[in-house]
Structure formats: structure tokens, C-alpha cells
């Protein structure tokens, strides 16, 4: 079973690495994200949100879903640790 899991992990990793071949290069100015999204955020971010810090504007507003689920991930981590460790007292 362990070997099977290892093979599955290797296969998934290889597949993901193969997928990165199609990504644009680092800092490529012709990449789709650098052509439409980034200029819009930089040019209109302050005007649209009145937040001088672009990072905060992107994190909190344009990418609100991402930040929401980041928070939920942290919450889940805490809940799981509580669930995994705190059952001990009841059993004794």
C-alpha cells in the first residue's frame, strides 16, 4: 500500500512538473496575466478602492475569495489540532 501511494505521488508530481512547461517564463512581460490583470490593478487600484497599498487592495478586494479560504484553512488547522489532541481526557 505504501509503495502504491509512493507511485501515485511520483506520478502526480511528474504530471504537475510536466504541466509547468506550458507556463510563461518568470517576469515575462508578454504573459497573459502581465498584459491585462496587473496593469489594471496598478493603474486603477487606488482609484477603485481608495487603498494606497496595492497588496492589501488585491488581497482583500480583488482576491477576496482567496483570502477568505486562507482564513478558513487556518481555522480548520486549529480545529483539527483541537479535535486530534483534546479527546484524551474523556477516555481516561
Amino acid at each position: 500500500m505504501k509503495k502504491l501511494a509512493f507511485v501515485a505521488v511520483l506520478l502526480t508530481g511528474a504530471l504537475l512538473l510536466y504541466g509547468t512547461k506550458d507556463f510563461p517564463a518568470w517576469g515575462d512581460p508578454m504573459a497573459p496575466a502581465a498584459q491585462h490583470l496587473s496593469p489594471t490593478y496598478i493603474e486603477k487600484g487606488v482609484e477603485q478602492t481608495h487603498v494606497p497599498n496595492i497588496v492589501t487592495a488585491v488581497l482583500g478586494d480583488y482576491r477576496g475569495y482567496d483570502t477568505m479560504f486562507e482564513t478558513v484553512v487556518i481555522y480548520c488547522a486549529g480545529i483539527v489540532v483541537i479535535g486530534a489532541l483534546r479527546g484524551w481526557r474523556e477516555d481516561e
Partner: protein
Amino acid sequence: MTDDQDQLQTKAGTSGPIVEMAVRIMTPFIQLFGLYVIAHGHYSPGGGFQGGVILGSAYILLGIAFNQQIAMRYFSERVNNMLASGGALIYVGTGVVCALLGGLFLDYSALDRILHLGPIEWRSMGIFIVEVGVGLTVMSIMTSLFWDLGSGGELEKGL
């Protein structure tokens, strides 16, 4: 008050009076700095995650310098759990309120229908509300992780 101080002294760990005094002085400033980082995320590096970790570290510091019982007297487990859930709820709730008011989910400009500040100003305010929620969750979860991992889930004596 004297009872409190007695307990502080008898229950204190091995960190010594210098460390304890230093921690007592530093804790409020660390918390103030955490609040500043959360509130000033609009203008400088910072925000909910960073500020929340700083706020949580104040309680972790209390737990290390004194012991877990004393740290938990200032921030009980019940309040901790409520704040952790409440923070996540503030974030999701803001999004749901925006959706109920006729905007998209997490489109803060819809909140303008409650209080007329202007849709763009509300986008800024919405980010702040959301950051407070993130800060609360991160603070409580960091503290709770330290308490649980430090005491093996028994919450009796920490590290």
C-alpha cells in the same frame, strides 16, 4: 489583587523575575503593535494575518514566561474558540451581507446601501472589516495551537 500576585509568583515557572517583569511590560506594547499592523494594513505592509500573529504571540509569550494557567486566565479557552469562529464568521458574513444587499459576494460597495459613505469608500472599509476578521481568527488559532501542542491537549501545564 494580592491573591492574584501571590499566585503569579508561586505558580511562575523557571524563567525568573527579570524575564517575568520584562514580559509584563512588553505584552501591552506587543498587542498595541499588533492592532496597529492590522489597522494600518491599508497604508503600509501588514494586514490581518501579520497583525493576528503578533497579537497571538503576546499570549504565547505570556504562556512561556509564566505558565499556561496564567495565560489562560487572561484569555480563556471559551473566549478563544468564540473569537476564532467569530473572525471567520465576520469575513464570510460580510460577503453574505453584500450578496443579500444586491451586490456580488464580497463586493463591499453594496454595503453603501446601509450607510451612505460612497461605494468606493466602502470598498476600503470592507477590506478593513475583513482584515479584522482575519486578525481575530489568526490570533485565536495561533494561541490555541500553542496551548494544545505545548500541553499535549490537556491544557493544564504548558511548556
